[in-house]
C-alpha cells in the first residue's frame, strides 16, 4: 500500500501536522503575545506570516491552531468511530430485532440534517471548550460509519469461519471481539481518518459561526476572528489564508490516503499511468 505515491504523500502531510501539534508549544513562538509595534502588518522577515490587528503573530497562531484543531478532530473521530462500532457491529452480527432497532437509529441519524442540529445543540451550550465541541461533533457524526460496519459484519457473520466457531460453542462476545472486529480494522481506520478530517472541518465551521469558546486557538477561531474584525474588508488576507490552507491541506492528504487505499482494494479505479497510455496508443497506430 505504501507503494502508492498518494498514500505516502497523504500520510506524510498528516504526520507533519500531527508533529506540529505535538511540538508546536515547544517552539519559541507565543500565539497570544501582542507586538504593539507591528499591528496588521503584512508578512515580513520579522513576522513571516504577518500579524493580526492585535499585533499577534499569524505564524505562531497557525502553529498553535494545529493543536486546537487536531485535538477536536481526533477526539470527535474517536467518539464517532466508537459509537459506529457499538451500533453497527452488533446490528450486522446479531440481525433480527437487534438489527431492526439499531438500524432504525442509524437511519434516523443518517437523514437528520447534521449541521443545523449541531448548531442548535451547540447554540444552547454556547461558548464551550474543545472537549464539548468534539463530543457534539462525534455524537452526530457516526451514522455513515455505522451503516458501513453493519454491512461488513453482516457479511462476516455468515462466513464459514465464524459459523464454524459458533458451532464449536464460542460465546458471542468472544466471536465479535476476536473474529469479526479484527477483519474490520481496515474499515475502522479509514473511518477514523475520515472522522478526523470531518471533525477538523466541523470545528472550523462551528468556530466560524462563533459557537466555540473564543479564548481557545484553532484554525476555525482564527478565521472567525479575522471575519469578526473585518479582515476581508480591510485587505488583511494573511490573517485568514494560512489557517484555511492548513485545513485544505489536511483534507486533501486524507482524501489521497483514502484514494490510494481504494485503488489497492479496487483495481478498476487505478489510473493507467500516462506512459503506459502513450505506449499503447503508439502500438495501435503502428
Amino acid at each position, binding site marked *: 500500500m505504501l507503494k502508492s505515491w498518494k498514500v505516502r504523500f497523504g500520510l506524510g502531510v498528516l504526520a507533519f501536522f500531527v508533529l506540529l501539534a505535538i511540538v508546536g508549544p515547544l517552539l519559541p513562538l507565543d500565539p497570544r503575545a501582542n507586538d504593539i509595534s507591528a499591528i496588521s502588518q503584512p508578512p515580513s522577515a520579522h513576522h513571516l506570516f504577518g500579524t493580526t490587528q492585535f499585533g499577534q503573530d499569524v505564524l505562531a497562531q497557525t502553529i498553535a491552531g494545529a493543536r486546537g484543531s487536531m485535538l477536536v478532530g481526533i477526539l470527535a473521530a474517536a467518539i464517532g468511530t466508537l459509537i459506529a462500532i457499538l451500533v453497527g457491529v452488533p446490528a450486522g452480527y446479531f440481525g433480527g430485532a437487534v438489527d431492526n432497532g439499531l438500524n432504525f437509529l442509524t437511519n434516523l441519524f443518517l437523514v437528520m440534517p447534521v449541521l443545523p442540529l449541531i448548531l442548535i445543540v451547540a447554540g444552547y451550550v454556547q461558548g464551550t471548550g474543545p472537549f464539548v465541541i468534539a463530543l457534539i461533533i462525534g455524537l452526530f457524526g457516526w451514522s455513515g460509519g455505522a451503516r458501513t460496519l453493519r454491512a461488513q459484519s453482516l457479511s462476516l457473520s455468515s462466513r464459514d469461519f465464524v459459523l464454524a466457531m459458533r458451532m464449536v460453542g464460542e460465546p458471542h462476545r468472544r466471536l465479535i471481539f476476536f473474529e469479526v472486529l479484527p477483519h474490520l480494522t481496515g474499515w475502522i481506520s479509514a473511518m477514523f481518518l475520515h472522522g478526523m478530517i470531518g471533525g477538523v472541518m466541523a470545528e472550523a465551521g462551528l468556530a466560524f459561526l462563533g459557537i466555540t469558546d473564543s479564548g481557545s486557538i484553532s484554525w476555525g477561531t482564527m*478565521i472567525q476572528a479575522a471575519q469578526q474584525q473585518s479582515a476581508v474588508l480591510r485587505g488583511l488576507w494573511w490573517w485568514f489564508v494560512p489557517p484555511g490552507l492548513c485545513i485544505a491541506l489536511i483534507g486533501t492528504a486524507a482524501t489521497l490516503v483514502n484514494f490510494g487505499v481504494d485503488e489497492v482494494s479496487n483495481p478498476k479505479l487505478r489510473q493507467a499511468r500516462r506512459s503506459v497510455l502513450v505506449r499503447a496508443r503508439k502500438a495501435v497506430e503502428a
Partner: protein
Amino acid sequence: MRWAFLARRLGFYLAAAAAAIGLNFLLPRLMPGDPSSAIVEELERVSGQQVPAETLMSIRAIFGNPHANLAQQFADYLRQLSHGDLGVSVVNFPVPVADLVRQALPWTLLLVGTTTVTAFAIGTLLGVVAGWKAGSRLDAILTPFTTFLSSVPYFWVALLALWIFGFVLGWTPLSGGYDADLSQGFSLAYAVSVLHHGVLPAATIVFSAFGGWLLGMRNMTVTTVREDYVLLAQAKGLSPKRVMFRYAARNAMLPSFTGFAMALGGVVGGALLTEIVFSYPGIGYLLYESLQKRDYPMMQGVFLLITLAVLLANLVADLAYVLLDPRIRARG
C-alpha cells in the same frame, strides 16, 4: 414487492418526522434556559425589580410555561404546529416566526436551488468525461484539483472570493441580497440589483460543490465503462458519444441522482455559511441571527422546517430510486 418496499420507507419517514418533532420539542426543554425565563430575567435586569405576576402570566401565555406539565406542553405544541403556528419571535417581537421564515425562504430557494442544479449539471458532465477516459490529461488535471477543492472549507473560499472580487477588484457588493436604497418589487433596477448581489455567493457555491459530483460520477463511470454491455455497445459500432452517455453514464448516474434529490432537500438549510459570509437575507442567516440573539422560538421553527424539508427530499429520492432501479423493485 414494490408496494411493500414503499410502505416500509413511508413508515420510516413518518417515524423520522415524529422523532424530529419530538426532538424539536424536547431539546429546548432539556437544555438550560427557556424563552420565558430569558425574557423575565431580561426585564428584571432592565427594571431592577421583580416582574409582576400578571406580566409573568402573559409572558408565559405567549412563550410557554417551563413549569407546566410536560404532556400538557406537548399537546399545546402540537396544536400550535397543526395550525402552521411556529410561535412568536422573541427578538422581533411580536412578529410570528412563520412570517419571518416566509420572507427569508424565497431568497434561499432561489440562490441555493439554482446553484445546486448548476453544480450538479457541471460536475456530472465533467465526471462522465473524466471517468470515460480515466488517465487522460483531462482526468489527470481535474481529479486531483477537485480532490483539493472538496477539502477546502467552504466559508473560507467564500471569504477569499469576497476579498478578491468584492474588496480588491470591487466587482461585487460586499453584503446583502439587494441594494437597500431600492424598494422591493418587480422593477428592472431591483432585479438587476438582486442579480448583482447574488452572483458571487452563487459562484462560490457552484465552485465548491461541483467537485463532489464530479468525483462520484467519475468513479462510477470508471466502473461501468468496463461492464460487458458497454463493450457490446461499442462492438455494435455505436458512436462513442452515444455509448458514453446512453450506456455508461446512464447507469453510472443512479447514485448521483439520489444524491441530487437529497441535495435538493438540503437547499432549504444548505447555504447556512454562504448566507452568513455574504449577509444574504435567507433562511441560513435567519438561523444564524436567532442563534446569536438566542431567539429560541425562531431557532426551533427554522430547524423544524429544515428537517422536514430534508426528510421529504429523502423520501422523494427513495421513490425515484425504486422507479429507476429495477433491482430494488425485485428485492423489495
